[in-house]
């Protein structure tokens, strides 16, 4: 491993960041290397590795997790003040004043992500072994999964924005490849393309932010940028912050770049669980929290972040209420939950730690929910329409229980994981930021109402799938008074052990992880070297009343959903509904808006451009070309084909240039 410590980072690290990496952390590069090698082997070995490829993929993911554990133990063995390290690996672009190195940032934040990515990643690898068993391309699937894990680890371990960008693009690529994994169906290929293009819009933000940083600070290293951010002009820092937010919006499917996430569900379900629920889409939150020193300087940028988060959390929740596709409903829920995290991150120092906390718990219960959805689909012959489910709790006991635990966790029922993290965010939202109380009220109530809607749509999803009456064809032929005997015959069955095992593990996480990490504020304290210590301001309403209010709303949402979807009959085709519901069914017209505001004018613009290009530009250049052609015919005489003549011309040109330079210089 290229631990070339002699090539020291060119920049002086800030006082908090140490360049001397202790021996206990020197394994860090292997975290990335293992899955990367796995991906390379699987992609290069071709069909030869079809038989053992998935086990290799699983092994590298687990190996990576083990190294991550070693890092965790290493960090825990150090004093809290000494847990931030920059590990220089390689001098990447030594170019005069721009000197970019490849280096890893090892601190509580990145190690948290490493553990989340590799642990959930390993479980989903394991799940996929069974889930993709009958797919001819299982090896390719595992290669892409490994590639994704490697890229995600690069993203979270990078110590400069440029290397982060490498990982950022890497996960984008992996996401594209995996959404379009069944690329032979046009729908999937289009969904992959959509995700890719919308992600690029966000990437422009990151690129512009990097350019601004380079122009302002002369460096892209976290250490330098974060140290100098307070000294730069407020306007520039705000611009950088907003550009970073744009990047975060693209990757994390935040308003207004959220439209791709629903379509991204075209990929295999383990992909949706790993990439589009637990890890990649949370990269935007990571970016904002990682750039905390920038956002700390600019309250305006922070406010925009919080607004975007609040808008998205409501947006996603409303969409979630109307979707009948189980995966798309979960995707809307992901969008909404990430809205919570972005909102928390936008609240500033008091919210960073809670954003990451919710991210971790969400990673567990949402991955669990997705795996449950995958298990249901597995048992129901790839049916995704919830109106065709119903009463499945009898047939899939394990899925039912694990899914139910995840459901309770996302609702925020104490003492499940979601309660500890989401409630903290709601509490933090009610804290006035720099004395402005209206913000506290607006954000606080948005978060509160969001929790209520979340309870409704997640319960709707849960009851429509597992509760109520059977709405699928069991092939028995009798009408049974309830279920319509149409559609393909289904034989719902529990999934194999390889699939239920990860679900059980994640369900345990959904139950205990939140309480465990909230115990004595241990997680917040653990993140303090990165997020800084936040003084505890009091919310505008007392904490006990907030918790009560939240729980009341949640219970209200559950009861509403229970009456409507468990007690009452659910029609197998979507009934006509109010304007809001219809809007929500089509993602609140986001695609239409995109199409009208960006695509159509874009098309007109291109058409105009094509026309003017043909007439004006081409006309000019065709005329010019004709002229050049005539000249060329004359000059052709000089082309005698003798290499030596050409060499003489080159030499003559060289002499002339040198002479001219000399003449100008003297």
């Amino acid at each position, binding site marked *: 491993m290229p631990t070339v410590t002699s090539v020291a980072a060119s920049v002086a690290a800030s006082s908090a960041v140490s360049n001397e990496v202790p021996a206990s952390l020197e394994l860090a590069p292997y975290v990335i290397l293992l899955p990367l090698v796995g991906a390379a082997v699987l992609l290069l070995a071709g069909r030869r590795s079809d038989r053992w490829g998935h086990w290799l993929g699983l092994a590298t993911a687990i190996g990576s997790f083990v190294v991550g554990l070693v890092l965790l133990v290493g960090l825990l063995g150090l004093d809290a003040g000494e847990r931030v390290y920059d590990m220089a690996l390689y001098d990447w672009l030594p170019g005069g004043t721009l000197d970019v190195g490849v280096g890893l940032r090892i601190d509580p934040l990145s190690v948290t992500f490493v553990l989340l990515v590799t642990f959930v990643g390993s479980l989903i690898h394991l799940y996929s072994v069974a889930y993709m068993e009958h797919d001819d391309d299982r090896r390719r699937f595992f290669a892409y999964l490994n590639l994704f894990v490697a890229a995600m680890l690069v993203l979270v371990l990078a110590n400069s924005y440029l290397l982060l960008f490498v990982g950022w693009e890497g996960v984008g690529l992996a996401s594209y490849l995996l959404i379009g994994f069944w690329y032979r169906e046009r729908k999937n290929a289009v969904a992959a393309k959509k995700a890719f293009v919308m992600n690029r819009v966000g990437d422009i933000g990151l690129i512009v932010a990097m350019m601004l940083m380079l122009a302002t600070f002369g460096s892209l290293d976290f250490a330098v940028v974060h140290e100098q951010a307070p000294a730069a002009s407020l306007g520039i820092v705000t611009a950088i912050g907003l550009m970073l937010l744009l990047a975060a919006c693209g990757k994390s499917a935040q308003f207004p770049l959220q439209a791709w996430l629903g379509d991204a569900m075209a990929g295999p379900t383990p992909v949706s669980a790993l990439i589009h629920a637990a890890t990649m889409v949370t990269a935007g939150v990571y970016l904002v929290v990682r750039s905390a020193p920038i956002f700390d300087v600019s309250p305006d940028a922070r406010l925009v972040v919080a607004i975007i988060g609040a808008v998205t959390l409501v947006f996603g929740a409303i969409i979630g209420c109307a979707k009948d596709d189980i995966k798309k409903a979960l995707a809307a829920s992901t969008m909404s939950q990430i809205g919570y995290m972005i909102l928390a991150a936008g609240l500033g120092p008091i919210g960073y730690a809670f954003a990451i906390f919710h991210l971790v718990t969400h990673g567990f219960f949402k991955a669990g929910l997705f795996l449950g959805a995958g298990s249901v689909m597995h048992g129901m012959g790839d049916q995704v329409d919830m109106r065709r489910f119903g009463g499945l709790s009898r047939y899939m006991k394990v899925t039912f229980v694990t899914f139910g635990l995840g459901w309770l966790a996302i609702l925020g029922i104490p003492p499940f994981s979601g309660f500890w993290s989401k409630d903290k965010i709601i509490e933090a939202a009610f804290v006035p930021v720099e004395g402005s109380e209206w913000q506290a009220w607006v954000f606080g109530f948005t978060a509160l109402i969001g929790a209520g809607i979340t309870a409704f749509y997640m319960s709707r999803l849960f009851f429509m799938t597992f509760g109520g009456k059977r709405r699928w064809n069991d092939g028995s032929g009798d009408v049974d008074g309830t279920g319509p005997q149409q559609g393909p015959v289904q034989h719902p069955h529990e999934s194999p052990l390889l699939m239920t095992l990860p679900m059980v593990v994640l369900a345990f996480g959904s139950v205990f992880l939140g309480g465990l990490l909230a115990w004595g504020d241990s997680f917040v304290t653990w993140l303090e070297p990165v997020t800084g210590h936040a003084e505890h301001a009091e919310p505008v309403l007392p904490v006990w009343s907030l918790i009560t209010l939240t729980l009341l709303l949640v219970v209200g949402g559950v009861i509403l959903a229970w009456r409507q979807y468990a007690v009452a009959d659910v029609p197998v085709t979507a009934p006509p509904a109010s304007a809001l519901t219809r809007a929500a069914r089509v993602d609140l017209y986001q695609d239409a808006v995109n199409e009208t505001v960006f695509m159509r004018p874009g098309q007109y613009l291109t058409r105009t451009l094509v026309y003017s290009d043909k007439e004006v530009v081409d006309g000019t250049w065709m005329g010019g070309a004709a002229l050049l052609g005539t000249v060329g015919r004359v000059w052709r005489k000089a*082309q005698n084909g003798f290499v030596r003549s050409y060499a003489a011309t080159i030499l003559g040109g060289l002499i002339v240039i040198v002479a001219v330079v000399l003449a100008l210089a003297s």
Partner: protein
Amino acid sequence: MELTHYVVLSCILFSVGAATVLLRRNAIIVFMGVELMLNATNLAFVTFGRMHGDLSGQVIAFFVMVVAAAEVVVGLAIIIAIFRARRSVSVDDVDLLKS
């Protein structure tokens, strides 16, 4: 400054190499002219490296040597291929560029 002499020598040898490329028709000899030019630049690199007390000059010269070795291999292979096809190593016989 005495080290300048080396650079002047390198300039002269470079010019001789260039003249060889321009004047000789045997592709192999032309090739040797190119080698002479490469070596002349190497001499300049090494001299400048010594002037500045920096080993980078020698490193670059080393890379030039390695790349030149690769270039010779490919170049001579091309010459042999042409010789097989045309029974000639004259660069003037290979004038297909003109049409």
